[in-house]
């Protein structure tokens, strides 16, 4: 039913910390242009930003993709990094393996995955140690 989903995708380059948020900012502009309600845009922005940050900082770069359907949107981040050995632990607020150098820049608060979960209607993490991580988060357009 409905229209073809709208897909937008960006490569997240390894090492380029100053670029964190660029892809998310483009997603945000697209969602505004598509006329998506502003509270949904804000939630999607938080999800995209935290996913982008993780793919770059922890995953060593990868891809960030947004798919906009009629009644929901999906944000996916994938990388071929080290993977997450214990997802439950990683989900805990404040847990972070970020280095001091990264923390000084304001990243690595251990709040990324909890922020994503709080703003998503559904969230899945597919990860394998030594192979990489794929995160998929959905925001539904219908409220209540």
């Amino acid at each position, binding site marked *: 039913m409905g229209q073809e989903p709208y897909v937008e995708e960006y490569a997240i380059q390894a090492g380029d910390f*100053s670029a*964190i948020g660029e892809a998310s900012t483009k997603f945000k502009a697209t969602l505004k242009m598509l006329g998506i309600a502003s509270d949904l845009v*804000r939630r999607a922005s938080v999800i995209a930003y935290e996913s982008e*940050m993780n793919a770059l900082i922890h995953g060593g770069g990868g891809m960030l993709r947004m798919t906009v359907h009629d009644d929901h949107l999906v944000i996916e981040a994938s990388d071929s990094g080290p993977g997450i050995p214990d997802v439950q632990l990683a989900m805990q607020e404040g847990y972070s393996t970020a280095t001091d150098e990264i923390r000084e820049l*304001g*990243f690595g*608060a251990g*709040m990324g995955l909890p*922020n994503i979960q*709080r703003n998503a209607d559904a969230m899945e993490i597919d990860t394998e140690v030594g192979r990489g991580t794929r995160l998929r988060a959905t925001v539904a357009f219908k409220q209540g």
Partner: protein
Amino acid sequence: MKIGEAVRVTGASVLVEGDMDRELGGAISGDLLSFIMAEAREGWLWITIQTHVNAAAVAVLKEVPFILAASGRMPDRTLVDRCSVEGITLATTPMSAFDAAGALREAGFPISS
């Protein structure tokens, strides 16, 4: 309180002038980007000692119209440039984040939440 008044009250030097008549709906202070992503609201002032370009993306995504660098921190050139492209007011105050918040409250800045 308008952005222009917040600048005056904190004795800040403006590096990028956005809409100085914009009314601030609240304020938040913090240096952890994920914390600001979680807690900042549209139209708020953000007081921070972060001065690198990444602060701009957070402000854009959260629709924060004014970043105030505290403790005399001088924003990176790249942050200045990004803020001017995005129309975000950027200023630096010699006051600490604590003192800047105190000065704003004393001048009548309302409680945010």
